[in-house]
Each structure stands twice: as C-alpha cells, then as structure tokens.
C-alpha cells in the first residue's frame, strides 16, 4: 500500500487553514484593539493606550435609548421565534406531514432572499394596512428571519429524539399536553436555550430590516450606522462595537456549547 494519504500534505493545508482563520478573525479583532488606541484615526503606528473612548460611551446621547430599544425588540423576538420554532420543528419531525420538504423549504426562504427585498416587502405590507412603523414592525421582521435559525437548531435536536418515549408516555395515560411538558420539553431544553440565545443575537445585531422597518426609534445597529458619518465619533463607535462583539461571542459560545452538550447526552454527538 502506498504511503498513508491521510498523513501527507496536511502541512500546507494546515498552514492555509490557519491563515484563513486569521483572515476571518482579523477584522473582528481590529475593533477592540483600536478602541484602546489614543488617536481619532484607525491607522498605524498606534499611539498610546487609553480608555477614554470607553469612558466617552457613557455620555453618548441616544446610546442608552438605542440599547433599550434593542433589548425591547430582541427579547420578545427570541421568545416568539423560539416558540414558533418549537411548534414547527415538532410538526416537521414528529408527524408524517404532507409536503414536509416543501414546508421546510418555505421556512428557510427568508435566509436565501436578499434582506433588502424582505425589508421592502414588509414595508409595503405594513404601509398598505396603515400600520405605523415602530419597534413592533422591526420585531415582526426579525421573527421572520429568526424562525429558520430556531428551526434548524431544534430540528437537529428533535430528529435524534426517540419518539417511542412520547408514545410510552401517552400509553401510560398522560395527556398530550403533559407529555409534551414532561417528556419532549426536557429533552429539547438545550436546543431551546441555544435557540433563544442565537435568535436574540440575530435580532440584536440585525441592521437592514431594522433600517427599513423602524419609525423614529433606533436600535443599536441603526444608532451605530448613524454615528459612522461623524469621524470624531469613530473611536467611541469602536468601543461600542467591541463591547457588542464581546457579548455576541460569549452568547454564541454558550449556545453552541449547550447544543453540543445536549447532543452528547443523546449519544448522537458529532465528536
């Protein structure tokens, strides 16, 4: 037999993959690094270390308002889209539903449609019914794009789920509602938590739909976008952006860990 093909070659491939990782992380790491740089411009050579941009954040007009709005949208969006995700994932994995493929396809539609077109179509729909644009309309838009993600997370969870446990529970005399509550729900719990965290992040960071669908209230990404026009405010935007990045990283890492932990419990872990 020839030399083990698996062993030869990874050196340059490995180097490439590391370079690729650097390419992926560099822009993201740039924001925190320069948010401590004592200069208005993002350029080399770097000047001294400073925390004043971070201190400046506290005095920004409208920042806390935007932060509050973002929470007002993202928390209900994560709850609603995860609830819808549970129902749909249950329907799509549990029953032999007619046109399962079609339904799954339709649900994932928002992911492959350019967001701008989704945004304007919702804008037109709201407008034609005389519904005012507000945080509500942003929330509805976000639910539409969050459900597919929630569905993905939960479906992989429920697909590996042994339905005979549910049947056993029903045979033993539990009502369908109690079966869901006592059997399905605990098994799906890690997936549900992961879905809550991920949908929260998506809504919290989403810019384009919010840009089209908000009225006078700005969410955090819209606030950032409006600040980009002022060069003097750039360092404070860097600090704000870094804070958001750190929070997002933490949330997503927890979500991924939850998801895998759950998989390991079911004995279907990929690792």
């Amino acid at each position, binding site marked *: *037999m*020839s030399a083990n*093909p*698996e062993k*030869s*070659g990874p050196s340059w*491939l*490995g180097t*490439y*993959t590391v370079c690729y*990782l650097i*390419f*992926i992380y*560099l*822009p*993201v790491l*740039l924001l925190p690094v*320069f948010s401590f740089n004592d200069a208005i411009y*993002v*350029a*080399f*050579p770097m000047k001294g270390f400073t925390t004043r941009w971070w201190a400046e954040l506290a005095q920004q007009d409208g920042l806390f308002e935007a932060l509050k709005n973002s929470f007002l949208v993202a928390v209900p969006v994560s709850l609603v889209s995860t609830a819808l995700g549970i129902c*749909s994932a249950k*329907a799509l994995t549990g029953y032999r539903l007619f046109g399962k493929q079609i*339904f799954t396809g*339709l*649900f994932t*539609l928002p*992911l*492959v*449609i*350019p*967001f*701008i*077109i*989704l945004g*304007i*179509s919702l804008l*037109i*729909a709201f407008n*034609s019914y005389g519904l005012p644009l507000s945080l509500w309309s942003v929330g*509805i838009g976000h639910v*539409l794009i969050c459900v597919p993600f929630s569905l993905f997370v939960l479906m992989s969870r429920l697909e590996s789920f042994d339905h005979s446990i549910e049947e056993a529970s029903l045979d033993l005399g539990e009502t369908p509602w109690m079966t869901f509550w006592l059997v399905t729900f605990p098994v799906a719990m890690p997936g549900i938590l992961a879905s809550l965290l*991920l949908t929260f*992040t*998506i809504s919290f*960071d989403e*810019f*384009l739909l919010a840009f*089209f669908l908000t009225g006078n209230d700005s969410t955090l*990404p819209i606030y*950032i976008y409006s600040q980009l026009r002022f060069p003097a405010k750039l360092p404070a935007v860097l600090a704000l*952006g870094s804070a*958001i*990045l750190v929070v*997002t*990283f933490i949330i997503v890492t927890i979500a*991924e860990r939850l998801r895998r932990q759950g998989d390991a419990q079911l004995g279907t872990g*990929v*690792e």
Partner: protein
Amino acid sequence: MILMIVALIFPFLMVFGLSFTVETGPQGQSEWSLGSYQAFFDKPQYLRVLWRSVIISTIVAITTVLLAYPAAYFIAFHVKKNKMRWLILITLPFWTSYLLRVFAWKLILGYNGVVNSALIYLGLIDQPLDFILYNVNAVVITLAHAWAAFAILPIYVSLQKIDKSLIEAAHDLGEGKVATFMRVTLPLSMPGVVAALLLVFIPTVGDYVTPKLVGGPNGLMIGSLIQVAFGRLDNWPLGAAISVISMITVTAGVCVFLLGLDRLKKMVA
C-alpha cells in the same frame, strides 16, 4: 405555522402588485400600469447596475468557495479530534454584527486605513494605495469574508459524507494524489460546492450595506438602487419593480447555472 408562511408569501405578492402601478397623485393615488418597468428599462444605468450586481456576486461566490474549500477539506480529512471545535471557531465571527464586520473592512482598506498606514510606516510605499477602497475589489473582499460561513459549512458536510474507502481504492489502483482529488474527491463534493455557490450568490446580489460602506460609486449594487427608490426618490412602485426584476434575474441566473451544470455532468459522464 401556516400563518408564518402566509406572513412570508403575502408581502411578496404585494411587492409584485405594487410594481405594476404608478403613482398618479401626491397622496399616493395610483393606477395599474407598466410604467415602473418602463422607467427601469429606459435608464441604461439601471441595467448596468443590475448587470454589475450579478457579476460582482458571481465573483464573490466563486472567490468565497475557492477560499473556503481548502479549509473545509483540511477540517474534514486532516483534523482528527475536535472537528466541531474547528467548525465553531470558523463560524463564530459569522454570528457577530454584519454591520460591524463590514465597517471593520472599511477601516482596514481605507485611504488612511490600517493597510495603507502600515505599509507607509514600514516604508514599503510612499503614498496610500487608492485602489483598495471604494471599488469592486473592496466589495469582493468584504463579501467573501462576510459570507465565509455559508460556503464552508455545505462544503464541509459534503466532504464529510464521502466514503473514505473510495479514496483509498483510488490510491490502491495507482492514482496519484492530485488525480484522486480531481477524479474522486472533487466530483463527490460537488453538491456542497454548488450549494455554497448558490447560498453566497443569491443573498449577495441584493446586499446593501457592503456596497454602501466600501463600494464607492463604481461598486454600487442593485440594493442601493432599491433603497434610493424607497428613500430619496420616494417612488415605491419603481423600487418594487426593481426588486421584482432583480429577483427574476437571480432566479434566471440560478437556473442557467444549474442547467449548465447538468449539461456538463452529462458531457463528462
């Protein structure tokens, strides 16, 4: 669930409907007409922007897939432990704010940005390079970065599914490494490559943020036109018509691509 789908389909029908109207009065009175489409096709610059969007997205899709393939290959075949950790590591930045990532590229590629200032500082150039921001290159780099996760995941999944014994068989039958890759691994991973191309191509055609922040006047894409129609021009029917036209263009592009692929497959077989 049905409600969700209705909530999704219905607005699209409204866009479709609106695109066949023109405004006839200041209070938004309108009548059925093909005027909005005519307005689009009357302006050659609109068509140029549409064409450019398709070209840029095609380049972006190919670049993203070419960059992602070796990394996906490495994880699928050479990483033995903790594959999941590698995948999470690669896809983690994808969850962070799209706006912030695009903005970071603006800072990197800018006239007084990170790349230029670093090169000047190191004495490699005297003047800032001006071909790196506010043009098509910048849009391609930024989008290839932003959509990396959409390319790497499907390619990884299709590579992971390949039966390793097929590759061993090719080796045992005396094929070299390159030949094995070209004749076994690559064809078997094609479904992932095709999915990745489409997943990157379709959404990027309508991207708005990237062309706006790093594209400059020559990097303008169709999303910007739609935004202008809904914003400054306040001509919603025109915006709707542009949306419908670009959706049709994207669908047609995808169909041509898939048909071509099918033809190619038959020719090879």
